[in-house]
């Protein structure tokens, strides 16, 4: 009779588990090599500042409209939804402080990163994937032009710089959305609103938020470049690279959010 507590696994399932684990460790090792190559190449000349600027511009332009709209709506809706609860305690004057803590500490970098993961991550993954399957990266390689430095390092640096800038912008736009609602509800002046916004915030809040956005930007850059640079299997591979860039980056962003919130809590 079968023991219900037995941990016997069918040999076929065992093989697929072993294969899955092996693939996972191979992938981790490849990512490690990819990161090691990035840190080796990024500090060595020549520095591709023109390409970094071009990529930063691309990242900003690609996400600007959506980020502006989303940031504004987040600020507006968050304020509107918070009002009834605070009104029960007669504490609607706390709205600016509450909203600023939520937006500056968490929502601005997170919303920016999630939108950028979708817009920028998929675009980088597809662009590099397409270059890989059409042998454009090989063509750069054989002409001695160091495609890793030109294509990968520049995009990772650009997203690590551009996404924190976008996050600051989202914070500002979200507060404007919030102010619009506060003005309509309480008629608070802009000066009073801003004073209440900055009152509960400390330097650690800004610092943690900025560090978080840099990590998010770096993650989006690394994940999308890795997926695109090593894409294979033709056009199907390009689609998979774009998709995997978004899914993996979003997953890692949430993981990082949890970790950084914990760490920032110790310093606060």
């Amino acid at each position, binding site marked *: 009779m079968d023991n219900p507590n037995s941990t016997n696994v069918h040999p076929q399932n065992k093989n697929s588990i072993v294969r899955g684990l092996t693939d996972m460790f191979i992938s981790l090792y490849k990512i490690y090599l990819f990161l090691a190559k990035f840190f080796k190449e990024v500090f060595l000349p020549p520095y591709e500042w023109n390409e970094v600027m071009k990529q930063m511009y691309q990242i900003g332009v690609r996400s600007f409209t959506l980020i502006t709209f989303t940031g504004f709506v987040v600020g507006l809706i968050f304020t509107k939804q918070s009002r009834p609860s605070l009104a029960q305690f007669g504490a609607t004057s706390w709205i600016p402080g509450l909203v600023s803590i939520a937006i500056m500490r968490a929502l601005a970098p997170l919303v920016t990163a999630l939108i950028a993961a979708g817009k920028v991550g998929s675009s980088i993954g597809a662009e590099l994937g397409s270059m890989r399957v059409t042998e454009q990266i*090989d*063509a750069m390689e054989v*002409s001695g*032009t160091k495609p890793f430095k030109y294509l990968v390092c520049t995009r990772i640096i650009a997203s690590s710089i551009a996404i924190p800038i976008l996050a600051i912008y989202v914070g500002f736009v979200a507060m404007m959305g919030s102010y619009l609602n506060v003005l309509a509800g309480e008629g608070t002046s802009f000066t009073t609103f801003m004073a209440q916004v900055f009152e509960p915030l400390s330097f650690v809040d800004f610092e943690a938020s900025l560090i978080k956005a840099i990590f998010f930007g770096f993650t989006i850059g690394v994940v999308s470049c890795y997926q695109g640079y090593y894409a294979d299997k033709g056009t199907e591979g390009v689609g998979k690279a774009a998709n995997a860039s978004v899914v993996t980056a979003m997953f890692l962003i949430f993981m990082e959010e949890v970790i950084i919130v914990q760490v920032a809590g110790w310093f606060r």
Partner: protein
Amino acid sequence: MQKPKGHINYDDTVISIRGLRKSFGDLHILKGVDLDLFQGENLVVLGRSGMGKSVLIKIISGLLNADSGSVNVLGEEVTNIAEKTLQQLRLNIGFSFQNSALYDSMTVRKNLEFPLVRNHKGLRRAEIDNAVETVLDAVGLSQTINQMPSELSGGQRKRIGIARTLILQPKIMLYDEPTAGLDPITCIEINDLINEVQQRYKTSSIIITHDMTCAKQTGDRMAILLDGQFQRQGSFDEVFATDDDRVRPFYDYNFIQ
């Protein structure tokens, strides 16, 4: 068209391959390949699809690693070469890809400038323009300078791909199926261009092809890759003077059917 006589120096071997092996998993592609390419020679490599012809030139250019064996290119052992030396060596190797591999986000001018400005820092604008115009003139496509790759025909893309390699003035050219997917007239133009490059730039070339007209018009020597090894080498007539069922179909399909 009759192939013009090249100035081949049989005392100078630019590529020397010995016992080259390459496998992908359980699939053994190259099983001990031996091959020499002499200075100034056009060597045509023939073989069925999937026999490892493209793998061979990718190993020569350092895009793929060999499992074992020796690949000596211009005096450097590619199978065991430092990254920096490989970068330098690659400046002497031009690789014309099957699908041209033009950078589709750049104009023709930018495509041609790209390898030049990145490998030769400090070039003046006039020198870059001059180099671009010279190679475009060599491939007969000066009028396309400001066009995007998507606006070019298949034959034009091939020519621009070749021009992009010529801008670095390589000593060795590797052509991966240069006439694949082109109409017969464009094929003849590409064959003429390959011969012109050999004469004008004094290059030594390996030409991977299935196209027997291309082989006959461009090759000084043929080598047939069969079952992971070069089975027959020699002039066009020598190679096909055989009843070998693995070799005859190449000739019969192109010239009899």
